C-alpha cells in the first residue's frame, strides 16, 4: 500500500517493525518501530515515556516525508542499541 501511494505521487512514511520485508518489497520511506503488535507504541514504557517516544517516531516520519530519496530508504528514529527488543 505504501508503494502504491508513492506511485500515485503521495510521499508515504511506512512505520513498521519488519524492516527487511519492507525493503524487500520496495517501500521507499521506512521508519523502524519497536514491535509487530504496536507500530507506534512501546508497552514496556510508562505512559509518558511511551508518548514521548511516539512523538520522536512521528517527527522522524515527518522528516522522511520531507526528504528526497532515490529508492528504499530507512529512517531510524533512534540510536542503535537504544530501546527496542
Amino acid at each position: 500500500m505504501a508503494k502504491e501511494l508513492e506511485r500515485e505521487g503521495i510521499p508515504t512514511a511506512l512505520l513498521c517493525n519488519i524492516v527487511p520485508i519492507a525493503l524487500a518489497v520496495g517501500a521507499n520511506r521506512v521508519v523502524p518501530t519497536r514491535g509487530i503488535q504496536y507500530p507506534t507504541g512501546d508497552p514496556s514504557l510508562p505512559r509518558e515515556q511511551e508518548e514521548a517516544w511516539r512523538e520522536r517516531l512521528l517527527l522522524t516520519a515527518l522528516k522522511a516525508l520531507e526528504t528526497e530519496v532515490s529508492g528504499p530508504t530507512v529512517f531510524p528514529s533512534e540510536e542503535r542499541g537504544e530501546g527496542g527488543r
Partner: protein
Amino acid sequence: MLRVVHYVNQFFAGLGGEEKADLKPEVRSGPVGPGRLLQSLLQGKGEVVATLICGDTYFAEQPEEACRRLADLLFTLKADLMLAGPAFASGRYGLACGEVARMALNELTIPAVAAMHHENPGVQAAAAGAYIVPCGSSAASMKEALPPLLALGIKLASGSALSPNVDGYLPRGIRKNVTADLPAAVRAVNMVLAKIAGRPFTSEIPLPQFDRVTPAPPVPDIRQATVALVTESGLVPAGNPDRIESSRASHFARYSIGGLRGFAPGEFESVHGGYSTDLANADPNRLVPLDVARRLEEAGRIARLYDYYFTTVGNGTSVQKAQAFAREIASEIRRSGVQAAILTAT
C-alpha cells in the same frame, strides 16, 4: 533411511496462535502437525526425526538470533534433509521458513527446502540460495503443498542435478554452464525469427522483474502540508461497522477522526487476525498515532491532519487487493488536498 527435520511455527505446531508468537526456538522429537503428513508421504523412505519450532514474532523481530539458535539445535540432529513450512501466504512464517532453509543449506550444508506462496515476502531467501517451492496461499491447500516440498527435498538430498524449470522451485539466480545443441548465433537468430513471426520463444536471459516504484517527490515543507493516517493494522470503531475481515480483507474503510484528540480504548479496536491485539486495544494509539499527530498539528509541525483515517487488515490480503485499496485511497486524498501519508503496519 533419510533423517528429516521439519520446521514449523507455533501455530502449525499446535502450541497456540498469536498469543504464543513470541515462542523461542525449540525442538520436539518426531513429527508434529503437518510433519505427520510428511511422515506418511515418506512411505518408509525416511523418518521425520524431529521438529524445530519457533514463534513467528520471535523470528521476525530477531531473525539473526533465531537463526543462530535454530542452527545450534539443527546441528545436533544429524539431519539428511531439512524441510520448512509450508508457510502459504503468511509473511512472518514465510520469512522464517526461507531463512531457515537458507541457513541449513548455506551454513550447515544440509539439503533444505521451504514451501510458500509465490507472493510471500519470504521468497527473497531464494536469491540468497534457498530452495523454495511455491504453493497455495492458505492452509486449505496443505495436501497439495506437501508432496512437491518432499519430492524436491528427496531429490536434493540424493545429490541429483536440479533445475528450476524441471523441478519447479523458484529460480535462485544461479547460472550454470551447459552444452547447447546449437551455437549461440543460430539460437539468437531463431529467436528473432520466432519473434517476427509471432511464435512463442523463451529468452535465455530472463530479465529480473523488480516492482520498484519511483519514490514520490518529498513535501517541500511539512509544516504547510495536510497529512493522512493510513493503516493495515485493522483498527476500526468498536463493533467493526463495515465488517472488515480479520484475514484476507476484501475492502478498506475510512472513519472520521475530526475533533478526536486520540483513540480511546473501548471505542476503537483492532480486528486484525494476524497478531495478538491485546496491547493495541489497551491503547489504540499504538496502532495509529492519532494522539501525538493531533498534538503535532496543534503545535504547527503539520498544517492539518486529514479528517478521516483509512484502515484495512493486512493479513493474507493479496498484493493485488492492497494495491487497489491504496489507489482508491490515493485518489480520495489527492482530491482533498492531502500531500503526504503516514502508514502504520503490523
